């Protein structure tokens, strides 16, 4: 799967360049981080409690399933933060993971 989300309209917006896990990507101005990442990939992050990949759930800031981080360690909800030129996003928590379920 190339992208999980499918763009249906509003595709004439200017592009924004950012970096995700060290790889440069292009998104459209006004995209949330979630849309930028999921129009080009199938997941946002790794679950801390099992082997599953996660791609968000509620899109309204209630479930907290879409956390990503800036390289400097700031946590962002991908559903409610927009892309910006030069943003450097990492999709693994910049700390040790916490394997509760092995």
């Amino acid at each position, binding site marked *: 799967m190339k992208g999980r989300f499918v763009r*249906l309209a*509003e595709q004439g*917006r200017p592009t924004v360049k950012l970096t995700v896990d060290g790889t440069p990507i292009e998104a459209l101005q006004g995209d949330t981080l979630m849309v930028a990442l999921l129009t080009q990939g199938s997941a946002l992050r790794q679950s801390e409690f099992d082997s599953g990949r996660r791609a968000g759930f509620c899109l309204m800031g*209630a479930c907290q399933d879409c956390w990503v981080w800036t390289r400097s360690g700031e*946590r962002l909800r991908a559903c409610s933060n927009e892309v910006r030129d030069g943003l450097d996003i990492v999709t693994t928590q910049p700390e040790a993971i916490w394997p509760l379920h092995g």
Partner: protein
Amino acid sequence: MATARLSTHRVVIVGAGPAGIRCAETLLAAGCKPILIDENRRDGGQIYRRQPEGFTRDYTTLYGTEAAKAKDLHQSFDRLRGLIDYRPDTLVWNLTPGQLCCVSQGKHSTVDYDALILCTGATDRLMPIEGWQLAGTYSLGGAQIALKSQAVSIGHRVVFMGSGPLLYLVASQYLKAGANVAAVLDTSPLGKRIGALPKLLARPGVLFTGMKLLAQLYRAKIPVHLGISPLQVLGDAQRGVSGVRVRTAEGKTLTVECDAVALGYHLRPETQLADLAGCRLRFDEASSQWWLATDEEGRTSVNGVYAAGDGSKIRGADAAEHAGRLVAMALLEDLHQPVDAGLRDEQRRALALMDQFRLGLAQAFPWPAEQAKALPDSAIVCRCEMISAGELRRTVSEKGACEVNRAKAFSRVGMGRCQGRYCSQAGAEVIAAAAGVNVQLVGRQRGQAPVKPLSMLTEEVSP
């Protein structure tokens, strides 16, 4: 004298959706300038959520049959914006009597209040299904936000599953926007809808709109199945969703291939702040969930704390506008200000019809409590921390935890990132079924501060 008092009375509204905006508008017209705090960056709440600047779809494309209402609310807000103290992108994460704890862009601050009006809205109400933790399963409201706010579909082939008016609304919006709708799978059987017709006729226009949406789906030859029992979201942990399996009303197993599922059973209120303020909640028999206990006009059990909209009682966006006006008038009256009795009666009459209608909706699209009982032990209840129905049941059978908060302490169901928003109601049903008691008797998950996770990097700012 009265005006002087009003101008020094610190009124804070939390939430800039239909209830909060109409409340602010009514207060302002009476000479009271409220502080309006909203977690979102733009006004409108969820249902009338605005698309980002630079997007060009018009109101009809975005909001369909609700276009005129959305435009009116947005225009009302645009007129208010410069005249009130509007604080977007601000989360109220805790409160004490007379003071709110807020965080905005990583900075913490406090806001003092004399009167607090909670218009905190709702989120989707979810019932787990085996496999719902797989990437590609979204809440129904989330699926709508993807389309409305970002012009994307949540997948290449989307199944809509659950029950309630939103199921048909979002499916038809996806269809109209050119998305690939694989099926609409509704747990509610046809008979329930027919039985609810007398109550639904309280709002014939809304009922007709709903029937039109259904007709659009049939005309587009989208498979619509009523009275289904969800069995499983199919797929694997790495690639996510690959389909859904349900049992049809005729008892056959039906598998639908898809890469996304929009799942939801109407709405649940965001009552955490009211709970922290000490407001009483009550169990609503019709919808089988806990709502805020308020009087007809929105006064909670705590002096000076008011509530309106879906955050106190799920009646939908139209009702929220009326309730927002009404709660503002209640506050004005409590402050011995004159209120327009005609306007107040108009709101009351409209709300009476909407109360009747919402009882019809609860009957037509019932919360599928029996699914919790039927969940296999292996199904995940808490998708934040991957805790299964079996683990939760064992806290009842082995530790005797028949109360929601005690079972949460043992099992962690309700303790993860979403803080119980998406698991605690279904968790309560699992506990009640395992304990063999009515769900009302196992209680409800208490609100805890912070009501949403805060970053350790949050800075304190001196007021």
